[in-house]
């Protein structure tokens, strides 16, 4: 809970963080082996961070493993897919009045130690949403398969053209959001393969998005939900969604979120 005294490390690195109500949203699907480690690492990073694990219909002991480590667990009655799972977390954050939310995947590919870099620009008020990008700088670390990278490049190029800002990693789920970002995603979040559409949505709602270079680790467990054939389907679906989305009227942020 946020009442617990902060470790000096994170408060020194991120002054002002201690006063905010903050939550980590951890979507997990059959990741009983990696989720406890992710929770421990999040605690080590910031003991004042509330942790909510969204169990997206796992058939293993993901929910029990997370609860045993003291995380709050939202157990979905059946698999909603990553978009629906993550939005459950945003809704939780919105309804419980959190000021800051970070999203960290339960498979262990996001290293909580790098959250300092992602949170800093949000905390400083420079952006509404900060996204950890594997390609924003020549960072090393884990690289995904060749076909996956090409797909990511194509989407990044398309999205950059549309939003008029260079976006390098539209598939990254390693993010930090302020109250405006939480409110937007709690209200409307794409399904299936959500980050690409969400990026476009953020700009259409005139929120600010900033990429921060990070390195990602190899997935510690579970398996990527994107296989070769599915990725073609997703590509078509996402591009369709983006282009149709362009003809939607701009939906301005609601009263009070400006």
């Amino acid at each position: 809970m946020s009442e617990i005294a902060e470790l000096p490390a994170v408060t020194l690195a991120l002054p002002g963080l201690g006063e905010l109500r903050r939550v980590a949203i951890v979507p997990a699907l059959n990741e009983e082996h990696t989720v406890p480690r992710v929770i421990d690492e999040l605690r080590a990073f910031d003991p004042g961070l509330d942790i909510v694990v969204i169990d997206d219909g796992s058939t293993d002991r993901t929910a029990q493993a997370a609860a045993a480590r003291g995380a709050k667990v939202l157990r979905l009655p059946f698999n909603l897919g990553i978009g629906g799972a993550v939005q459950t977390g945003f809704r939780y954050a919105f309804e419980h009045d959190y000021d800051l939310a970070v999203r960290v995947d339960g498979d262990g590919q996001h290293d909580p130690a790098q959250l300092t870099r992602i949170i800093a620009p949000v905390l400083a008020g420079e952006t509404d949403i900060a996204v950890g990008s594997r390609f924003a700088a020549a960072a090393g670390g884990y690289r995904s398969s060749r076909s996956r990278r090409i797909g990511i490049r194509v989407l990044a190029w398309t999205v950059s053209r549309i939003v008029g800002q260079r976006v390098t990693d539209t598939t990254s789920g390693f993010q930090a959001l302020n109250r405006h970002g939480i409110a937007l995603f709690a209200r409307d979040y794409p399904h299936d393969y959500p980050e690409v559409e969400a990026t476009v949505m953020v700009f259409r709602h005139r929120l600010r998005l900033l990429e921060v270079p990070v390195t990602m680790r190899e997935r510690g467990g579970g398996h990527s939900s994107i296989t070769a054939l599915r990725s073609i389907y997703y590509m078509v679906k996402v591009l369709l969604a983006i282009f149709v989305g362009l003809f939607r009227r701009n939906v301005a942020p609601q009263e009070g979120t400006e």
Partner: protein
Amino acid sequence: MTPLAVSIAGAIASFTLVLVVLELIRSHRLRERYALLWLVTGLVLTALSAWRGGLNTIARWLGVRGYPPAVLFAVGILFIIAVLLHYSTVISRLSDQNVMLAQRLALLEQELESSGSRG
């Protein structure tokens, strides 16, 4: 040879389908995942209606003699079957999920009541 009027009417009708589907997506009344099959249907039928030489060639391949637009009907029916089959799988999944939701609700209600009477 396909009558010109049939080609024009077919192309207009199919293209209207495409436009209606796009508008439904735009106004959030149809999800992309359920729209893709409709879009393919509309685009294929538009192409077959407008590309008259192609329709004749395909009709010849299929042994359709005398009235090439019959191919349009065949393709249309094929796509309608595909869409319906897809919907049957969607409905099956939804009813399974509905059962799970009702069961979860009953369990939660029981849990709430027993914890309420304890406290």
